[in-house]
């Protein structure tokens, strides 16, 4: 398959099948419906199984069962659907079951809108379910990257035995772009299967997948083990893109759809002689704090741009550590910012002496 024009949602689904996904469980919700629809068409042809659940709650629990039985399994949904799945996601994290969950974000709170938004940053990075756990969150900004990150998501989930989020949004999922599937199809990892439920065949003691530990000392130990894993992930897996940032005086920080808009603003500002740049987190968790460890020498301020009322800006402020002021510009409720308004906002900051 050469370069093909397709929607972000379709690219993710095709990439998942190339990534070895054999089982998909999901429930309809806009704007992610192309994902289950493509799986319903293509997965049976590839020898896999598509099953429509009665709710997102059932879907995430089917995913839990399927992945616990050894399948490369996934589900997808959009913001309110993800909220319903959080009970299951906490369970998947607690029991260390590898799987992939796609969130094609829409505006909230509540039912909100079906238009694109990034207001699930908290939901994607701060849990949402109960307990101390973290989920790897990959944030693509193009259709091509949506496909690449999808394949990578399965490998990461198996490497660390943890659920992985792929964080898209209604714009990225619905837009068409050329995409090329460059990563070779994955084969089922021959990794450790000692946790998979397969029936003991009378040859080993029965195996149990569980999260309940009533003895506080045992539960504390389990938590510490999980935290150890999260530390390893934090050290190794954070990723970001740096765009025209080396000599930037004004450094934007944005992810996903917002980041691709910001790139236009950076180019516009540069044309007008303003030294602007961008740091684009490609992993929301672990947040790429190393990207901010050494700021460009002339950097005077950071501007966090989100399609929300300001969620990632908390992490950007932590990353800045008070060295430079952090400004925030957001549009929400499904409104997509335009490059010109971002450039204008930056110009105002510069003229006003903030930069």
């Amino acid at each position, binding site marked *: 398959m050469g370069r093909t024009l397709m929607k972000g949602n379709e690219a993710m689904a095709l990439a998942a099948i190339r990534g070895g996904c054999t089982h998909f469980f999901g429930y309809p919700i806009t704007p992610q419906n192309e994902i289950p629809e493509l799986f319903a068409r293509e997965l049976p042809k590839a020898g896999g199984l598509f*099953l429509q659940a009665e709710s997102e709650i059932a879907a995430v629990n089917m995913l839990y*069962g*399927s992945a616990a039985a050894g399948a490369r*399994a996934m589900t997808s949904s959009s913001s309110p659907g993800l909220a319903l799945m959080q*009970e299951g996601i906490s369970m998947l994290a607690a029991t260390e079951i590898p799987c992939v969950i796609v969130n094609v974000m829409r505006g909230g709170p509540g039912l909100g809108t079906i238009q694109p938004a990034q207001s699930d940053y908290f939901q994607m990075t701060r849990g949402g379910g109960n307990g101390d756990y973290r989920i790897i969150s990959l944030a693509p900004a193009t259709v091509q990257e949506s496909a690449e990150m999808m394949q990578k998501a399965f490998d990461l989930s198996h490497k660390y035995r943890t659920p992985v989020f792929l964080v898209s949004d209604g714009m990225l999922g619905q837009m068409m772009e050329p995409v090329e599937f460059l990563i070779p199809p994955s084969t089922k990892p021959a990794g450790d299967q000692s946790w998979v*439920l397969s029936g003991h065949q009378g*040859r080993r003691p029965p195996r149990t997948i569980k999260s309940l530990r009533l003895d506080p000392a045992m539960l504390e130990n389990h938590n510490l083990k999980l935290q150890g894993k999260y530390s390893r992930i934090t050290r190794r897996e954070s990723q970001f893109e740096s765009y025209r940032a080396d000599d930037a005086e004004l450094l934007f920080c944005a992810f996903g759809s917002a980041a691709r808009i910001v790139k236009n603003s950076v180019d516009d500002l540069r044309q007008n002689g303003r030294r602007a740049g961008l740091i684009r987190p490609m992993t929301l968790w672990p947040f790429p704090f190393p990207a901010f460890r050494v700021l460009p020498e002339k950097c005077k301020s950071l501007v966090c741009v989100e399609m929300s009322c300001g969620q990632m800006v908390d992490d950007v402020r932590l990353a800045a550590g008070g060295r430079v002021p952090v400004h925030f510009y957001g549009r929400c409720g499904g409104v997509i910012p335009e490059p010109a308004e971002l450039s204008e906002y930056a110009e105002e900051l510069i003229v006003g002496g903030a930069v």
Partner: protein
Amino acid sequence: MSVIFKKTAGLTETDTHYCPGCTHGVAHRLVGEVLEELGLLGDTIGCASVGCSIFSYNYFNVDMIECSHGRAPAVATGIKRTVPGKTVFTYQGDGDLAAIGTAEIVHAAHRGEHITVIFVNNAIYGMTGGQMAPTTLSGQKATTAPTGRNAELSGMPLKMSEMIAEVPGATYVERVSLHHPKYIRKAKKAILRGFTYQLQNRGFSMVELLSTCPTGWGLAPVAALEWLGNNMIPYYPLGVLKAPEEV
């Protein structure tokens, strides 16, 4: 000296945590015996649910997975659809199956999942300390129905087996009781039938076991058995509610 009775290989050596007189032990033994007799212990995956039976994963000699409250039929769906050659069962109480998990049980039946559901109905929430369940009888006292279940406030007790029998995808639904040896033998036959249909890929089977909760009911074990026979069976009649026509 010959052995005339021994513990089933379907159960582990772990002591159970169940209260004296509780019929979970009997229910466990019946399921264990059936799986042993069918030669399925090495090829079975069980789904434990939230409630007293959550620790069933310590007692059944099969691979087990713990499920969130009410979700066992969805988890079982995911397992069975992934490893269709394995025998998959859920073991759920009435709080789990008849309240928080009604959507999951109805839709697993609706899809005709090839799983076996062991539904333990003791008309109360046991694990959490004796609160009213959807199955609590009218007038029956519970910690959240201190003067007895009031139908005007909480509705009449839900008859899950009758409901599930109406679902087109359900293959076999039977209600049995564990309050007397004669009934326990019938219960075992029902459980055997449920697992046999699964082995034959004939679809969804559910066996409801009327059970006692002496602690939650505030009755001595023998009195609890009698109470079940006198009060539960008249409202929850025993028998086959749905079964395939035998060839």
